[in-house]
């Protein structure tokens, strides 16, 4: 028997404002849609463990897409993108995610993202609370300065290695070495997008005076942060969740900033807790 994974890949065309993207996504499972955003400068293989997690895919349709300019999703189809510097904004990022949900006809998906995907989860809860059953911001905070650096694209250094080894310390020493190296490998592939992603992460994203406008009753927010994350620490996550109406926070022991990619076995235990709190698992109470 050929050892073929149940995970399938597709392309879907998405229009955002006047920009058209052809977006690649992986999916597996049935039930409650669970839409997953990778971290800055990376791609959807970070969710490889979740995509094949039979307990979660039994009652969730897990969809992990490549944001345009990442993985197998090309830059815009209809603009001369090479003539502009890429700087991702919260407005375009959130519009893209909502447009993707529309195109895939997703009804009340749960949105989960890590790092710049976690920060955009907070932005979605603020801007489009009616569109999501809940959001799970992973390794996120109201504000995350300090990572919009020229080193990611410095022409006198090997950008692939600077990006990959520059994020190495974001992972916990306890995480399996093979999974940390897979994450390193992914990061060696995304240096051109990384810095522009971090414009959103460290510059445009700032919710320090807006957290009280997030309606955690309309769109529940369950935040997860690992103890080895030096960019957004558990204290940052706890503080952020504490200022959101009914926001919840779960601290994850012995894991870092790329939990789903560096150690899915540890991450899934906390994710199951988050899904239980949201009530999306079969038999769970909302």
């Amino acid at each position, binding site marked *: 028997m050929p050892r073929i994974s149940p995970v399938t890949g597709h392309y879907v065309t998405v229009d955002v404002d006047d920009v058209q993207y052809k977006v690649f996504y992986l999916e597996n499972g049935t039930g409650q849609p669970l839409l997953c955003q990778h971290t800055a400068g990376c791609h959807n293989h970070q969710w490889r463990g979740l995509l094949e997690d039979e307990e979660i895919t039994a009652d969730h349709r897990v969809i992990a897409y490549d944001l345009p300019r990442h993985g197998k999703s090309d830059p815009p189809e209809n603009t001369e993108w090479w003539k502009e510097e890429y700087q991702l904004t919260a407005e375009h990022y959130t519009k893209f995610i909502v447009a993707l949900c529309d195109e895939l006809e997703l009804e009340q998906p749960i949105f989960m993202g890590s790092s710049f995907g976690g920060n955009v989860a907070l932005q979605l809860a603020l801007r489009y609370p009616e569109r999501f059953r809940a959001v799970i911001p992973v390794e996120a905070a109201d504000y995350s300065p*300090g990572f919009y650096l020229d*080193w990611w694209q*410095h022409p*006198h*250094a*090997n950008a692939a*290695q*600077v990006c*990959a*080894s*520059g994020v*190495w*310390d*974001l992972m*916990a*020493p*306890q995480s399996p070495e093979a999974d940390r190296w897979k994450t390193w490998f992914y990061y060696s592939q995304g240096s051109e997008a990384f810095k522009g992603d971090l414009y959103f992460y460290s510059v445009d994203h700032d919710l320090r005076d807006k957290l009280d406008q997030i309606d955690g009753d309309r769109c529940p927010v369950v935040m997860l942060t690992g*103890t*080895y994350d*030096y*960019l957004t*620490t558990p204290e940052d996550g706890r503080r952020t969740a504490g200022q959101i109406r009914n926001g919840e926070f779960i601290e994850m022991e012995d894991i870092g900033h790329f939990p789903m990619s560096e150690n899915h076995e540890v991450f899934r235990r906390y994710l199951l807790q988050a899904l239980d709190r949201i009530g999306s698992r079969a038999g769970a109470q909302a």
Partner: protein
Amino acid sequence: MTAATTTPTVEEWVRSFTDASDRDPEIQAHGKYFTCGYLLDMADHHFVVRMTSGKVAELAIDPGPLDVGYQFAIRAGAETWRGFGTEVPAPMFHGIWAATFRRDMKLEGDVLVLMQNLRCITRQIELLRTVGVPV
């Protein structure tokens, strides 16, 4: 090799660090162009590591102010370095980026050279988890 349970002497540490680096499969596989000099400032002691093509060419112990040149410096207090010198470092003692963002570590000098050699430097600093630190 297991983490040092007692503080090695400076001379013991220089020998074990040099040996660990020169025998490390990652550094030897990827260190063909790992050629630079850097200062490790551990407060109680400081060292200049001079690398040539992935091998430790010289490791100067507590050199005088103008004795040995280097391109960049990694500075931190002894407590921070002791955190690096454990088999499983606690959060924020687990790498130079983490300790620079959240502890007292400073990356100084020609940081471009650090970035050009980041892969091998990252691995070399992780060797402290097995050889310990002499402070």
